[in-house]
C-alpha cells in the first residue's frame, strides 16, 4: 500500500486527470504516436521547435493515470529545454526507471518526473510510465536523422 500511495500521489493524480498539456498544438514540427498494445494506452505527442529549443509540446490520447501523468509531467519538464538537454533528461529518466541511475545529483534534472522513481516496485506499470518517454525518444531520433541529411 505504501508503494501505491507513493505512486498515486497528488502530483501524479492532478497531472493524470487534469493536464493543461492535453490538447492539440495546431502547428507542429513533429508528431508521433506511441502505444502499448497490451493495455491499450495510446498517446500522440506534438512538438513545436524554435531553432534548437523545444518551444512547445502537447499530447492527446488515452490511457491509465500513470501513462497520462507521466506524459504530462514529461512535457512540463521538457518545454524550454534544448534538444541536447532533452535527450539527456529522457535518457536519465529511462535509466532511473531501470534502476541504472541512482545518483541524486543526476536525477535532479528530471524535476517533477522524479516522482516515478518507485514505479519499479510495480513492474506491471513500468511500461505505462515509459510510454511517453520512448515516444519522444523516437521524435528526437527522427529530428537527428533529418539534420544529418
Amino acid at each position: 500500500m505504501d508503494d501505491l500511495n507513493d505512486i498515486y500521489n497528488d502530483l501524479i493524480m492532478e497531472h493524470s486527470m487534469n493536464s493543461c498539456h492535453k490538447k492539440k498544438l495546431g502547428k507542429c514540427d513533429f508528431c508521433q504516436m506511441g502505444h502499448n498494445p497490451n493495455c491499450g494506452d495510446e498517446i500522440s505527442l506534438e512538438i513545436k521547435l524554435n531553432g534548437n529549443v523545444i518551444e512547445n509540446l502537447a499530447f492527446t490520447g488515452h490511457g491509465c493515470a500513470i501513462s497520462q501523468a507521466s506524459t504530462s509531467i514529461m512535457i512540463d519538464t521538457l518545454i524550454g529545454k534544448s534538444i541536447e538537454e532533452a535527450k539527456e533528461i529522457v535518457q536519465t529518466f529511462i535509466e532511473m526507471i531501470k534502476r541504472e541511475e541512482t545518483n541524486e545529483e543526476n536525477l535532479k534534472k528530471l524535476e517533477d518526473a522524479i516522482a516515478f522513481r518507485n514505479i519499479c516496485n510495480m513492474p506491471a506499470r513500468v511500461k505505462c510510465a515509459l510510454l511517453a518517454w520512448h515516444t519522444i525518444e523516437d521524435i528526437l531520433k527522427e529530428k537527428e536523422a533529418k539534420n544529418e541529411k
Partner: protein
Amino acid sequence: MNLKQDFPLLQNSKITYLDSGATSQKPLQVIHAVQEFYEKYNANPHRGAYTLSMEATEIYENTRQKIAHFINSKHTEEIIFSKNATEALNLLAYSYGMENLKNGDEIVLSIMEHHSNLVPWQKVSKVTGANLKYMYIGSDFEIADEEIETKITDQTKIVGITHVSNVLGTINNVKKIIKHAHKKGAVVIVDASQSIPHMKIDVQDLDCDFLVFSGHKMLAPLGIGVLYGKRELLNQMNPFLMGGDMIEYVYEQETTFAPLPNKFEAGTQNVEGVIGLGAAIDYIEKIGYDTIQEIEKEIVSYARQELSKLDYLTLYLTPNEANHSGVISFNIKGVHPHDVASILDSQNVCIRSGNHCAQPLMRFLGIDSTCRASFYFYNDKEDVDRLVWALKKAYEMFKKYITK
C-alpha cells in the same frame, strides 16, 4: 464443503483470485496426476513396442475416451488434442475454412468473439474472398433472435460463436444459432472455452459441427486443448500440421495420412496435459455440474447485487441473470481499468484489466478496456466482499480527481 482446500495456490497465498476466466487454479488431484505420470508412466505414446510406452499410450487414449464421454460425442476419434482453443480454431480455419470457402460465401461471427475465433477468419476471408459478417448485441448485451435470423443467410457457410462471452459473461443461445445455421446449410463452430468450466456440454444435444476448448480454464494444466468435430467432417478435412504420428505411409514424394484422430495430432503430444485434463474431468464430475452451478449462482448473484450498489460503476452485464455466467466486466467511471487493477492488486485482489482479446467488442461498446472479475466454484461470498471493499478503496483514492 470447503473446495478451496483442494487448491494449494489458494491455500498458500492470501490472494482473492478473481481471474479464473483467464485461467483457473489447479486442484491437488490434477497436480498429483501429472506428477504420477512422470514418476510411473513417462514414455512416448504410439512410438514404442515396450510395456512402458504401451502403458503411456493406454492412459493417453483412455483420456480421449473419457473426454468423449464427458461431452457426449458419438465417437472417440472425434476428439482431437490440441495445444489450446486457439490452435484448434486455427486448425479449423486452415483445414476447413481455407479449403471449403469461396468468393461470395459468408463467415458469420458474433461481435463478442475472442481474437482467437476472429483473426483466423479474417485470414480465411482475405484468402478465399468470403465475406466476414458479425452478429451484434443489443443494449442487454445479448444477441437478439432477429440478429441471428438476418445475419445467417443462404450464403453463410461457417458460423463461429462463443458459448459464453469472456468479457460480458453472456450465455449465447447456441442451440438456436445452430438450428438456424443448419437450416441455411452452414456449419457451426462453438467456442466452449468459457462455458465448459461451468456447465455440462453435450455436443450431440447441441448438434454443433465443431467445438473447441482449452483445458487450463477448467482446472487442467496449461497447454492442452480439445477440438471436437463430427466424424464425417473431420474425415473430409486435410491435416493441419504434418510430421510424425499423423502418417500412414511416407514415400520420397508422397504420403498417406493416418485415420482419425491421429491425422490431426502431429508430433509428440502434451501427454502430461492430457493426463491432467483427465484428472480435471474426474474432479469436475466428482463435484458435479449441478453443485458447481449452485455454488456459482449464489456467488455471482451476490456479486451482481453488491456491485450494483456502487453507483460509480458502469456494469456491462445482461439484466437477464439466467443468461449470465461467472464473468463480470465493469469500470469505475472516469478511472482507467489498469489503475483499478493495480490498486486492487495492492489489496491482494486479482482481477483482469484490458481489452480481454476482444478489441472489436470494445470498439462496438465505445470503450478501450474494462475491469473484469471472473468467478469459479472455489470462490465464495467473502471474495466478493473483498472485491467490493477494494473497489471502494480505489474509488476513494480517485474520487477527488475525477473529472466528470
